[in-house]
């Protein structure tokens, strides 16, 4: 057990170093949400004219549309990066030729994905605190203490996202261009998850898809905690769904990974590309 933890720690540190040594890529997580939200807020103000704020309040029950949008952007980009990074990690190692090396060491191979997830957990938490925390501190100081319960929900919501990433990582293994696939799925998720709007404005059949991915519940619960000042215990329904999704996607991801690993050993696919 302790040996396993040591391995996990080593993988996590390796991945964190990667982010630290490519700061321009990591900065992306901290700067882009502000820029994107600024673009959308200006568009919204322009469309709604002088009554933009009122209309927005009528439709969402939230007064400050900048905060509403920056929360959406932060979670959206976070989920995007997680699915892309974890989803393409195995395929990338296969292309670079390092996958075989990693499979030569006597450890559970699933640890590579788990270690990467831990590194992402730290990054996600940090970007949430910096992006949403600083926005709350500047615009709505009273709501700042809600950052703590919402961070807990964020941590919970990351579990199904990682699970989904693991599912992806086994699915894209045979694709020559894994990024085109993750790009497409990520774009699709962004639209159906209600990143910038409540999902009930979407057609009924689309909502079915919305409610089958963790993004939707995560964004919804965060909004309720931060903007409606609801307590985590009051939102137990959402929390249970997130937890269940975490378990389901994790098991699915693990199963698929094992399946891929076995098949790769049989047909020598570890070094194929």
């Amino acid at each position: 057990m302790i040996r396993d933890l040591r391995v996990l720690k080593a993988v996590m540190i390796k991945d964190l170093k990667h982010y630290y040594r490519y700061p321009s890529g990591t900065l992306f997580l901290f700067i882009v949400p502000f820029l994107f939200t600024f673009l959308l807020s200006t568009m919204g103000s322009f469309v709604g004219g002088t009554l933009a704020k009122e209309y927005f309040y009528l439709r969402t029950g939230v007064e400050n549309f900048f905060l509403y949008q920056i929360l959406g952007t932060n979670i959206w980009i976070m989920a995007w990066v997680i699915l892309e990074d974890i989803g393409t990690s195995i395929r990338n190692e296969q292309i670079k030729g390092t996958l075989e090396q990693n499979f030569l060491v006597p450890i559970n191979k699933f640890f590579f994905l788990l270690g990467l997830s831990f590194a992402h957990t730290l990054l996600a938490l940090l970007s949430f605190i910096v992006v949403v925390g600083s926005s709350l501190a500047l615009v709505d100081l009273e709501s700042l203490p809600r950052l703590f319960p919402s961070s807990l929900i964020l941590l919970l919501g990351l579990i199904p996202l990682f699970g989904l990433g693991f599912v992806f990582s086994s699915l894209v293994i045979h694709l020559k261009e894994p990024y085109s696939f993750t790009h497409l799925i990520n774009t699709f998720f962004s639209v159906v998850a209600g990143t910038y709007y409540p999902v009930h404005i979407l057609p009924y059949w689309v909502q079915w898809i919305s409610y089958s991915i963790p993004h939707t519940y995560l964004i919804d619960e965060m909004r309720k905690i931060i903007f409606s000042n609801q307590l985590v215990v009051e939102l137990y329904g959402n929390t249970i769904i997130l937890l269940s999704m975490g378990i389901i996607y994790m098991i699915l991801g693990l199963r698929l990974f094992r399946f891929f690993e076995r098949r790769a050993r049989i047909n020598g696919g570890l070094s194929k590309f």
Partner: protein
Amino acid sequence: MEDYQSFNLYKFFIEFKASFLKDFKIYIRYPSWFVSDLISTPLWFLFFLLALILFIPEPSSPTIYSIDYFFWGYVFVIFLATSLWGIGHEIRTEQLEGTIEQLFLAPVSRLTLIIGRWARTLIVDLMIIFYTLLLVKFFSNAKFNVFHPSLLLFAFVLIEVTILGLGLLFSALALKMKSYNSLTTLLFITLTIVSGVYFPPSALPYPINMVSYSLPFTYLVDLLKYSALEIKTIIEISVEIPLSFLLASLTFLLGLFSFRWTERDLRKKGQIGFH
């Protein structure tokens, strides 16, 4: 730098054709990207529109700014993305894959090769724009009536000259900067904000709108929207047309100059194939 001095139409055509065909063949051999572009381009447009619906009382409420207004802005965004990724980023890929030195070894003008690449991206862009237009028209009440077709065509040409200039500028940047990949998204969003693509520069706070007024794209997008929708222009249309022409030409020359300068600098430092 005699590469740019002598111009021979026949040679230009041969080089252009070779470069265009090469890029086109490579592009179609990555069908997953084409499919991804085809589906995600209208999805992105929808993503923006859905975010904007919250700022009007009902989804069907009439606003002074129709879907057409955002569509024409989106067209420019597609072209901008092309110059950043399709042209600029591609040269970085050639550098990473080791083929760039081979291009510099051949007795050809690099400008022609980039024009060939630009032509490939233009064709794909036009296809995707047309297809998105059909989808938007099908699912919405957008009219897409064009106020002044020949002026719209003129605006398109100017935009493409600018995009080519930008493509050269970004190619130069991509050759020089190791972190070009992460820079592209930042540049893309910043330029989308300040070019007044989805709103007039007057909607931006001071002093950001001053940056807008000093960029060529602002007037080009404005001219595009005027020719399609007959909206009020930033400055008098009789001045905006020659000004746009001038700014498009200047952007092209700036791109050309920066690319030549970078090429020379890389030769000096021995970094053409460096990555």
